[in-house]
């Protein structure tokens, strides 16, 4: 049996790849996939219904992927559309697909997989004790679930497989496991799960599994019954056993166990050996099917509205006593906020970050001395409403700007603001509110799959 060739166009839709590389990659391929979402950039995108990559960047990648898939008559599969993978994110990506198809006069069968879950569905599962917390999960309550801005269930291979079996050629899915984008077709073709899932895990980051990735680009894997080969289609890129094995552990808490909706992949016993100059052969680990099907839930809740202030402090005297200065001005600010705006300290969050001291690490900074000539201040205010955050920030920057320094007399301007206005209204702030799996009886239970002929 000839190896099954699977292609990842790039690690994240919208980050790009070389057109020539995809040309090379697609030769003899059975599918082209791309992951389009992530929780990496934080809860904002899921919560607010926004996308991280620009439409134009997403469109450029999508057009090349679909063009190649149509040319080779193979499926194009996109997972976790629009960064957050909710309905609004999925629809935005599908709109881009429709407009490209119209402009290029393409005809194909499109399937969309919506992974968004109604809060009431999750609340019902909570009541029925069908939710299981993962390590580090937030405290849940029915109220908290119902208050979430958006909830999604991370889909496995089955919705992709169902869409393909119904005749779809282009499949755009909301939140899905990035591995499942790539494992779906191989599993359908009889490739064992320990091969399909492991190859998918390495493919999903595109060219990141190479030794030195100079730019995002495509990746291919050749899957057989007892091994798979990672082969970077860009001739200037090279996989080594170390680069492939190391990639498997990147961004994973546990480098050996990887849980998918259908079961657990244990790659402790996997072996990585060179296959030619630039490729790597992988002998797989072990896949254990799950007794009970579960899907991972992700959710974001609104935490408030933010206004931030950025300022430099360069005066050596103030820099030298920056902690005292900030403590002292904060006391005055909070007093004024109570007096003039009627907000008690507990009603809003108010945090100075001192860059040049411990801005990136806070209390964990092992050496919080100010060694430089300057510090950068970021004041972060989060309040229940934007107007409140903005009002507090106004009081704050103005007070801090003129806060008396014991050694100086007269009115000094302590802070160097780069912007007018000094405060930046940053909009809604979200928080990831769930890290649980939901038990399902059917793998398609929480996927809304629709078909369209374009």
């Amino acid at each position, binding site marked *: 049996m000839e190896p099954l060739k699977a292609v990842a166009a790039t690690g994240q839709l919208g980050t790009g790849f070389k057109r020539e590389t995809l040309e090379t990659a697609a030769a003899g391929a059975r599918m082209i996939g791309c992951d389009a979402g992530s*929780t*990496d*950039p*934080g*809860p*904002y995108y899921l919560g607010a219904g926004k996308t991280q990559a620009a439409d134009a960047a997403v469109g450029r990648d999508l057009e090349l992927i679909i063009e190649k898939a149509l040319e080779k008559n193979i499926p194009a599969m996109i997972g976790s559309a629009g960064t957050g993978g909710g309905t609004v994110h999925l629809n935005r990506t599908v709109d881009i697909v429709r407009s490209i198809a119209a402009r290029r006069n393409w005809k194909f069968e499109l399937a969309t997989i919506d992974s968004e879950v109604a809060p009431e569905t999750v609340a019902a599962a909570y009541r029925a004790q069908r939710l299981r917390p*993962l*390590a*580090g*999960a*937030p405290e849940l309550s029915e109220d908290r679930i119902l208050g979430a801005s958006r909830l999604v269930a991370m889909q496995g291979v089955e919705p992709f497989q169902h869409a393909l079996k119904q005749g779809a050629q282009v499949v755009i899915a909301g939140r899905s496991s990035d591995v499942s984008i790539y494992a779906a077709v191989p599993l359908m073709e009889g490739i064992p799960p320990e091969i399909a899932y492991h190859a998918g895990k390495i493919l999903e980051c595109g060219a990141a599994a190479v030794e030195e990735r100079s730019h995002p680009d495509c990746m291919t894997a050749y899957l057989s019954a007892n091994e798979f080969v990672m082969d970077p289609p860009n001739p200037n890129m090279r996989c080594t*056993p*170390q680069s492939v*094995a*190391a990639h498997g*552990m*990147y*961004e*994973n*808490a*546990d*480098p*050996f166990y990887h849980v998918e909706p259908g079961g657990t992949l244990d790659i402790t016993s996997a072996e*990585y050996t060179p296959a030619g100059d630039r490729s790597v052969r992988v002998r797989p680990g072990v896949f254990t099917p799950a007794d009970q099907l579960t899907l991972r839930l992700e959710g974001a809740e609104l*935490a*408030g509205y*933010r206004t931030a202030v950025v300022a430099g402090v360069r005066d050596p005297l103030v820099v030298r006593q920056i902690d005292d200065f900030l403590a002292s001005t904060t006391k005055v600010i909070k007093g004024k906020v109570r007096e003039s705006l009627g907000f008690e300290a507990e009603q809003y*969050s108010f*945090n100075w*970050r001192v860059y040049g001291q411990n*801005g*990136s*690490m*806070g*209390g*964990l900074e*092992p050496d919080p001395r100010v060694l430089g000539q300057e510090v950068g201040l970021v004041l*972060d205010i*989060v309040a229940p409403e934007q107007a409140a955050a903005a009002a507090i920030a106004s009081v704050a920057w103005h007070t801090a700007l003129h806060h008396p320094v014991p050694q100086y007399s007269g009115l000094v301007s302590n802070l160097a603001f780069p912007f007018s206005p000094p405060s930046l209204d940053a909009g809604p*702030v*979200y*928080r*990831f509110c769930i*890290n649980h799996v939901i038990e399902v009886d059917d793998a398609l239970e929480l996927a809304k799959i629709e078909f369209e002929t374009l």
Partner: protein
Amino acid sequence: MSGPSLTLGALAHEVRSKNAGPFWITFDVVFTTEDDYVKVVESGALSAASIAQRYAVDPALIRIFEMPSIRVIKFSFPRPCVAGSFEDRDLHAGQQHVPLLSLPIQ
């Protein structure tokens, strides 16, 4: 009197931190030579106790993995605050590895 003490920062080729999802942070300590990797592993210096002390985390929650085939020591623990929450100072948790660099290796 003992010789100059080595640090993890001096022996490791690369030390990096990153989110493993929004709720966990993971650290990879990468060595270029077998000798360096073995020296650090055998010293026992990178332990739940030494990590807990630097990151103010419960040592029982720290998971440490030795990966001799790629000369990497990885460890992970639950993030002190969820990624992107307003207490969070480092969205990607990419700048949290520095306290490890000064870890003495005997």
